[in-house]
C-alpha cells in the first residue's frame, strides 16, 4: 500500500478534502450537514478560543515504516517530508522562552525515523519539559538501530503513547498492515522489560484504541479494563491508560469512507453524537501544533488539511504568544470527530 500522494490520488489535495468535508459528495443535493460553527454558536463557544497553551505538539515528519488505512497524515515510507534541525532549534527557542508549555508531544509519521529525533528529545529533556512520543511500536523492531529505543525513552523519562487498535491480531492488522499486531506485542513486551507500564516505575505507557472501520469508539473505561485483562492474560503485557480516539474524516480515513460507501453515514453518526461537553473540552484549546516545515496549526488535523493558525505570524520562527493566545481556532466539519460521544483528543475521551 502506498500513500495517497504516491498514488497521485485526488484526495492527496487538501483543497479536494476540504471541498468534500464542507459540501459533502457532489451529486447528492438532499444531503446537508449542520455546520460545526452553528453548533458552537448555539453553545456560545464561537469563535472558539484557546484556554492556555500547555501542549506543544510537534509533527517531526510524515515518514513512517507503516501505511495504516486510517492515517490522517497520509504517512508512509514514500513520504520524505521531515523536520530539519534548524526548525527543531526554532522550536527549542520557543519552548525555552515560554514556560506555559509544560508538555512536548512528538508525533509523525514515525517520529523516531527523523535522524535528529534523539538530539531533539535530549534538548527538550534538558529544558525540563515533559515529553510524549507517539510511537507506533513496530519501529522498535523495524531495524537494529531502533532496538534500544525503550532504553532511550526511559533515560529521558519519555511518556510513550502507542496505537494498538485492538487486543487481537485481526482488527489490528486490517487497519495497520499484516504482521503489525505480532510486532506490536513484541515491542510492548520490550517496553515492559525496561519498566514501561509497570506499576511503581514512573514510566508511562499508554495505548491508543481507534476503530478499525466506520464506527465510533466504545466507552473508554470499559475498553481499558478489557484490554488490560486480555493483554495480561495472553501476552503478559501491562500498560497504564487506554485512550479511545475517534477517526477523523480526513486523508486516508476519508478515502476509506468514500471507497467503502460509508462517508455520509459516518458524518451523520458523528453529528448525531455531538456532545456539548466534549465541544468545550477540545484539545485545540490548550495545544499548539507545529508542522514539519515549522508552520503553526490549531491541531494535527488542521495541519494535515493545511489550515494554518488564524494569526499574522504563522511560522515558529515568528512565534508570538499574545497573538496565538488571542486567536480564533479554525473549525470545519471534520471537527465533529473530536466532539462525538465522549469526545476525542490525543489523550482520549474528554467528556
Amino acid at each position, binding site marked *: 500500500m502506498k500513500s495517497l500522494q504516491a498514488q497521485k490520488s485526488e484526495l492527496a489535495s487538501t483543497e479536494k478534502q476540504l471541498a468534500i468535508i464542507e459540501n459533502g459528495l457532489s451529486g447528492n443535493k438532499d444531503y446537508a450537514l449542520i455546520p460545526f460553527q452553528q453548533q458552537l454558536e448555539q453553545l456560545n463557544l464561537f469563535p472558539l478560543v484557546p484556554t492556555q497553551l500547555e501542549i506543544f505538539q510537534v509533527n517531526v515528519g510524515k515518514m513512517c515504516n507503516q501505511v495504516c488505512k486510517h492515517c490522517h497524515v497520509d504517512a508512509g515510507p514514500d513520504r520524505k517530508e521531515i523536520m530539519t534541525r534548524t526548525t527543531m532549534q526554532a522550536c527549542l527557542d520557543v519552548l525555552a522562552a515560554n514556560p506555559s508549555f509544560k508538555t512536548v508531544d512528538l508525533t509523525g509519521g514515525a517520529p523516531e525515523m527523523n535522524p535528529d529525533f534523539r538530539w531533539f528529545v535530549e534538548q527538550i529533556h534538558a529544558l525540563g519539559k515533559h515529553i510524549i512520543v507517539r510511537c507506533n511500536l513496530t519501529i522498535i523492531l523495524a531495524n537494529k538501530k531502533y532496538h534500544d529505543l525503550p532504553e532511550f525513552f526511559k533515560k529521558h523519562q519519555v511518556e510513550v503513547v502507542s496505537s494498538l487498535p*485492538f487486543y*487481537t491480531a*485481526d*482488527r489490528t492488522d486490517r487497519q495497520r498492515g499484516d504482521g503489525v499486531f505480532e510486532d506490536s506485542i513484541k515491542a510492548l513486551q520490550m517496553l515492559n522489560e525496561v519498566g514501561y507500564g509497570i506499576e511503581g516505575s514512573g514510566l508511562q505507557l499508554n495505548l491508543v484504541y481507534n*476503530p478499525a*472501520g466506520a*464506527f*465510533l*469508539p*466504545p*466507552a473508554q473505561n*470499559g*475498553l481499558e479494563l*478489557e484490554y488490560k485483562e486480555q493483554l495480561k492474560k495472553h501476552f503478559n503485557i501491562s500498560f497504564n491508560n487506554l485512550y479511545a480516539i475517534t477517526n477523523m474524516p480526513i486523508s486516508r480515513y476519508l478515502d476509506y469512507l468514500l471507497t467503502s460507501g460509508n462517508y455520509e453515514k459516518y458524518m*451523520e453518526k458523528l453529528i*448525531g453524537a455531538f456532545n456539548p461537553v466534549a465541544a468545550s473540552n477540545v484539545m485545540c484549546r490548550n495545544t499548539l501544533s507545529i508542522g514539519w516545515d515549522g508552520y503553526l496549526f490549531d491541531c494535527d488535523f488542521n495541519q494535515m488539511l493545511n489550515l494554518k493558525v488564524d494569526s499574522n505570524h504563522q511560522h515558529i520562527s515568528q512565534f508570538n504568544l499574545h497573538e496565538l493566545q488571542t486567536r480564533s481556532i479554525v473549525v470545519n466539519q471534520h471537527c465533529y470527530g473530536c466532539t462525538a460521544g465522549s469526545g476525542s483528543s490525543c489523550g482520549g475521551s474528554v467528556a
Partner: protein
Amino acid sequence: MANHYYDAADLAKFGKISEYQKELADKFFSWYGAAFADSALSAKEKSLIALAVAHAVQCPYCIDAYSSDAYEKGWNEAQMMEAVHVAAAIKGGAALVHGVQMMNKVKEIAM
C-alpha cells in the same frame, strides 16, 4: 405512507414515537437505557444478547443497530455469527420440540 413496510431511515426516528405519547415513550427509553447499562452483565455482553434476540424476532432495525453496536463493542465476526446460530437454534428447537406434541397426538389417535 411509503409503499414498503421498512425504511432504514426510520431507525434514526425511533425517538419520535414520543410525539404521540411522551410519558410512555420516556418510560420506555429510560428503562431501555437502564437495561443496556453496565451492571451484573456488561454493556458488551448485553449487546451480543441483543444481537441474538434481534435475529430471533427478525427485526431489521434491531439487526442493523446491534450488528453495528456489537462490532463496535469489540465482538468479532465469528462470535457474532455464533450468537445468531444460538438464536436460530433456539428458534429451530422451539419449532421442533413441538414435534413431541405431534407425536403425542398421533399416538393418542392412532390404532
